[in-house]
């Protein structure tokens, strides 16, 4: 079945390899357009539909011309690891691993 992905994680989708990707360069969470912006969402869906027709080979990526409509510097934020957080993250990881181990021993526990 012909497919097109509307996605914002360009490197992950291209690493996987997909038939068609409309890349929207937004913070993860709103691949189909900024919240409440029906005008931009409408453009993005039209671009995806157009790509369904125009792509001629797999791994076709088109970058949407729609820009994230904010001056907020979002790019460095997601998943960043800051030096002052290393101890906290290490402890968080240990807690997670213990919880996952417990869940394996007693699968019914939530």
């Amino acid at each position, binding site marked *: *079945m*012909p*497919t*097109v*992905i*509307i*996605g914002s*994680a*360009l*490197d*992950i*989708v291209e*690493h*996987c*390899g997909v*038939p068609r990707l409309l*890349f929207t*360069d*937004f*913070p*993860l*969470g*709103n*691949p*189909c*357009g*900024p*919240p*409440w*912006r*029906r005008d931009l*969402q*409408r453009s*993005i*869906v*039209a671009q995806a*539909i157009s790509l*369904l*027709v125009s*792509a001629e080979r*797999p*791994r076709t990526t088109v970058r949407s011309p729609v*820009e994230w409509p904010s*001056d907020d510097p*979002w*790019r460095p*934020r*997601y*998943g960043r*690891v800051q030096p002052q*957080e*290393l101890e906290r*993250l*290490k402890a*968080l*990881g*240990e807690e*997670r*691993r213990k919880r996952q181990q417990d869940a394996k021993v007693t699968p019914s526990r*939530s």
Partner: protein
Amino acid sequence: MAPTEPPVRYIERTRDYYRALGYQHDYVWAHFDDVPFVRLAAPLASTRIGLVTTASPPGLENRDARGVRHVWSGAVAPPPTKLFTDNVAWDKESTHTDDRASYLPIEMVAELAGQGVIGGLAPRFHGVPTEYSHRKTLEQDAPQILARLRDDGSQAAILCPL
């Protein structure tokens, strides 16, 4: 906000984050040397399109007693106001998912159907769990999504991962 800013490198970010959490092995992202490709079988104006999301139903009803998540489906009319998105990775500091159309554009595709640009919007959208296990996605979930799309008469699909 220069348009020339390079895209965020999420694979690298994710790897560094999990290393900081103390995980010994990096996540192995799905990768395929051979990527399937098919063209539309009919003109766009007679093609019915289905939608696929990685969001979950509001009450997490797709989760069984063992906590395993399953493929699920919802009606496009009336469209759901909100879906559950807290269990998937997105930029919770920079944006929000209060507007469901920002990640599952039911109304926008329905508009194009109403204008005759596409043949129609399938009556259901489908939800695919985001799994650590490639095998579950490939062998269980993806075939179910495809079967449901075909049951709806969809001839093409728009996949919208958060």
